[in-house]
């Protein structure tokens, strides 16, 4: 019998004009791995929450959900709590207690398990998830990736039959995301737990899933096993979802491929090799323009540490930022990327070395002077920027600071128009989606008319469509002559949109230069498209490059 079945499930939020999800009838078999995907706002989260009784949102629910053939509402509280596990996006907010071991025990305590059983479950779970080494730590000492693994383990300690996850890797860096997904696939394969997961980072997830549900506007528009899903979507290169697919699928789909569609990098390589056999490879010369003029912002031999006696985070950082260019600062966790941004923005003062803004030492400017019509910085949490009850008021505040009262209303209206935020002006900033919040925060910063825009992880947690919009906005600033610096984990974003790259390792910039040549020269730290085409097509970095090269190469 199916594990979970829904029958014509429709849900409308209070005051909503139309249902958030509509007429959804799906069934999930035991031990299946189902991937739910679709654009932001398509109803993925609502659907998942409707399948878990305790967190079903308030609103008008029609249709039925069955768990083991029984209506969800008829199941007793304990069976419901332990039978269906739920992991959410934000690692910070789903941890309840202050220590790792207590967090693992929390759910079991709730359902009244005796100490002996809890002890055993906690030990087993910690062992399965490799938590032993940080078992006694405080939750606050953990990295984001560890926190998310802890949340997963804490849910698994209750031995659920179904595990539901709502974009669990959206807030994680790529390495942590892969580690998380590896554990998830082990849960599915080694324990046979049914997994239902929503995700927009498909590159790594698609190969794990057995079945894909594609949602559009609150409805399930496709419900196929993964292979046929890929085959079907591959013949529609213009499909709106195409952008979100793994590079291998996108490349083969753009070339109107028939037969088996590659999904992973390995399959992509094999496929590309076969396709290019006996063909002459047109070399791709991509002229990279060098930056012109003097840097508007530069760090010279900057050393920094947070406290005397601690390790240096920056060890002789050299970095130049030019007007009209987008610089992407990349590197692993704790490499000093964010610190570099704080030092460049003048918020932290290096203990040695200097930061120059417009050729003058940043310390020589008066407090606050550089932030008006100068440097603006977007922190990782856009929520730190909003004070008022409506977006309009928040934007007005920034506008008044620079434009004066008379001009302010007009400049707010203009920027809202450019950013596509006009219809959201009366909303509370917290009610916007992740991507919208990001845009609103940038709009607020731009009202201060900065010449240099520094952004910390702006692509975190937003989907591929929002990323493209963001990139367009940033490029427009560059075209207008401003400088943009983006600190990011997102290799694909950097490769596609940045002019220059600075890679930070162990507190210093170890290599950099033009974005294209940087990624073309790397082996590990590069895009999927580059890994697919390495040695077959030279100098291809993005999926578009590969497609272009394949189309232009002729049979020799």
């Amino acid at each position, binding site marked *: 019998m199916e594990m979970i079945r829904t029958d014509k499930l429709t849900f409308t939020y209070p005051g909503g004009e139309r249902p958030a999800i509509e007429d959804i009838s799906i069934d999930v078999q035991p031990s299946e791995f189902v991937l739910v995907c679709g654009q932001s706002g398509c109803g993925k989260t609502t659907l998942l929450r409707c399948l878990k009784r305790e*967190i079903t949102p308030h609103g008008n629910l029609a249709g039925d959900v069955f768990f083991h053939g029984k209506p969800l509402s008829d199941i007793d509280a304990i069976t419901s*709590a332990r039978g269906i596990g739920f992991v959410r996006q934000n690692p910070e*907010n789903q941890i*309840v207690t202050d220590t790792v*071991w207590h967090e693992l025990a929390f759910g079991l305590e*709730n359902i009244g398990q005796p100490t002996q059983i809890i002890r055993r479950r906690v030990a087993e779970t910690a062992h399965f998830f490799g938590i032993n080494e940080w078992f006694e730590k405080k939750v606050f000492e953990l990295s984001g990736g560890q926190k998310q693994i802890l949340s997963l383990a804490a849910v698994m300690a209750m031995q659920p039959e179904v595990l539901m996850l709502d974009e669990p890797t959206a807030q994680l860096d790529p390495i942590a995301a892969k580690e998380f997904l590896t554990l998830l696939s082990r849960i599915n394969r080694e324990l046979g737990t049914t997994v239902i997961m929503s995700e927009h980072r498909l590159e790594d997830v698609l190969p794990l899933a057995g079945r894909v549900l594609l949602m559009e506007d609150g409805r399930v528009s496709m419900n196929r096993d993964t292979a046929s899903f890929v085959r079907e979507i591959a013949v529609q290169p213009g499909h709106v979802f195409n952008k979100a697919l793994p590079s291998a699928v996108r490349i083969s789909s753009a070339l109107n491929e028939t037969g088996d569609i590659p999904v992973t990098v390995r399959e992509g390589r094999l496929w590309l090799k076969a396709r290019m056999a006996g063909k002459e490879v047109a070399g791709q010369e991509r002229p990279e323009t060098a930056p012109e003029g003097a840097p508007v912002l530069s760090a010279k031999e900057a050393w920094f540490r947070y406290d005397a006696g601690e390790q240096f985070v920056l060890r002789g950082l050299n970095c130049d930022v030019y007007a009209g260019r987008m610089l992407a600062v990349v590197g692993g966790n704790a490499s000093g990327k964010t610190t570099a941004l704080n030092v460049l923005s003048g918020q932290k003062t290096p203990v040695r070395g200097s930061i120059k803004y417009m050729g003058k030492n940043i310390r020589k400017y008066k407090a606050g002077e550089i932030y008006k019509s100068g440097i603006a910085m977007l922190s*990782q949490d856009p*929520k730190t*920027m909003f004070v008022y009850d409506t977006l309009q008021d928040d934007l007005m505040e920034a506008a008044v600071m620079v434009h004066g009262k008379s001009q302010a209303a007009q400049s707010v209206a203009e920027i809202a128009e450019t950013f596509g935020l006009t219809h959201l002006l009366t909303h509370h900033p917290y009610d916007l989606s992740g991507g919208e919040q990001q845009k609103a925060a940038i709009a607020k*910063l731009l009202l201060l008319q900065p010449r240099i825009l520094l952004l910390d992880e702006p692509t975190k947690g937003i989907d591929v469509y929002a990323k493209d919009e963001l990139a367009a906005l940033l490029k427009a600033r560059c075209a207008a002559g401003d400088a943009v610096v983006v600190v990011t984990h997102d290799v694909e974003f950097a490769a596609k949109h940045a002019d220059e790259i600075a890679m930070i390792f162990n507190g210093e910039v170890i290599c950099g230069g033009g974005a294209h040549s940087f990624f073309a020269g790397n082996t590990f730290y590069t895009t999927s498209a580059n890994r697919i085409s390495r040695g077959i097509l030279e100098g291809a970095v993005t999926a578009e490059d590969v497609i272009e090269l394949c189309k232009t190469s002729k049979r020799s």
Partner: protein
Amino acid sequence: MKHIFHIYHPVVVFLYIMSALILTMLTLNPVCIAISFLAGSGYAIYLRGMRKYLKTLRFVAIIFLIIAIVNPLFNHNGITILFYMGDNPITLEALLFGLASGGMLASVMVWFTCYNVIMTNEKFLHLFGRALPTAALMLSMIMRLLPVTRYKISRIRAAQAAMGLNAKSGTLRQRMAHGVRISSILMSWTMEDSIETADTMNARGYGSAKRTSFSAFSWSAHDITAFAAIAALVGGTATLMILTLSQFVYYPMIGGELGSPLGIAGYAAYALLLCFPLLLELWETLRWR
């Protein structure tokens, strides 16, 4: 650095640290105060390092001085008059009593820094969690919220400063306005997050049955030995304190013997008790030689 008490049962650790605190508070015998201060300082340095200890000491010294100065100014008991301040006699006895109570309070504060290290939140929860499961969970949640809130405040400050709204500069009025801004953002952010936390608690069955309280601690042989040793030392010290050590008085004149044989035995028991964890550490170190 992990200290040896880390592996001991909460009851043992609680017995030790509470005895140290209470015995310190109960006696004003100068030798006992000196023993307590030295032993407490030694343990605090071992647990937290010299740098943090000296930081605490700076604060402790101020309290000590205030009490030592204020007592003779306001307390005119005692018969040995040193000099007059206005019409008020300043007596030797009151001065010594001030020094002793200052020293006692200083020792208590030093012991509290040790308490904070060895009586971890988990140990505390184990002791009181069964009786008060809801309070225990709340405490644990608050302990998580503290660092999270501190982190959020620093993030909000930084983001606001990057808009030229720095809470550290400007007139008092401006700075107060910035303070209000920061707390207002913090409130909205925390409320928003707590909705998610509440959801996740429900999802994990909070309230679906009567909660149990899990603890990772159990009694083992070394706990029982240590418990017996500490209890014996506490009993011995307390008896000897009542018999001899507390005979020492300050008013109206300094009286009582400090060096009787029984008294010396009392000091020895007291010192042994207070140094118990340090001796355990020493023994542990020697065993690995």
